[in-house]
């Protein structure tokens, strides 16, 4: 069980090697049968003819850590998970790079998949994180989640 209140924030993009390392790390756990992973990637959205080049994420870190502990405990209570890892970028992340990583593991697939989906939704809705979309001409607008 990895329930400790570890830091979930990564400065800049989340490197693919870190994702591979997280997966490889769990090979030793013989009770795991399923991993579910979600990755959020920066998209070159078009807004009024301008194209997003990067998103600069800022976080209310103190409140985020309180909130993440609450979400983590609720999801561990609800689903029979073996592991849960969440990482979110802080600072600028360029188009095509990964900004959000959710990883869940369980004996059977349903728990890992449902928990992963629930974590993605709750983190987007409840975590005090803001994305500033930077356009190619250096202007910006603040992202709004659907």
């Amino acid at each position, binding site marked *: 069980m990895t329930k400790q209140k570890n830091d979930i924030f990564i400065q800049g993009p989340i490197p693919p090697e870190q994702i591979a390392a997280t997966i490889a790390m769990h090979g030793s756990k013989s009770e795991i049968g399923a991993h579910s992973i979600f990755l*959020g990637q920066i998209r070159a959205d078009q807004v009024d003819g301008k194209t997003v080049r990067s998103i600069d*994420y*800022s*976080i*209310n870190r*103190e*409140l985020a850590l*309180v909130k993440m502990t609450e979400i983590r405990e609720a999801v561990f209570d609800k689903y029979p998970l073996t592991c849960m890892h969440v990482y*979110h970028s802080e600072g600028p992340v360029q188009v095509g790079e990964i*900004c*959000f990583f959710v990883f869940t593991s369980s004996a059977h697939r349903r728990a890992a998949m449902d928990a992963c989906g629930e974590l*993605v939704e709750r*983190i*987007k*809705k*409840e*975590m*005090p*994180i*803001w*994305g*500033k979309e930077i356009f190619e001409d250096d202007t910006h607008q*603040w*992202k*709004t*989640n659907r």
Partner: protein
Amino acid sequence: MRVQVKTFGALTDILEKEFYITVVDTEELLAVLSSQHTTLNHRRLLIAVNNTIINKPVVLQENDVVALMPPYSGG
């Protein structure tokens, strides 16, 4: 009471990221800021006092930390 205010997201385009202000409660805080910055009116804001989200106005204590936050947009 003198409290610390921290602002986030789009609010940082309008207000300082951190400042101190002397007010009685969160209602007065919002009234003062809205009178100084009319673009704050009609904005949906989340307010946390000492890292607890509040849903109605609360009286502030000396050295409280008030976070003013627009809707979240992580992920």
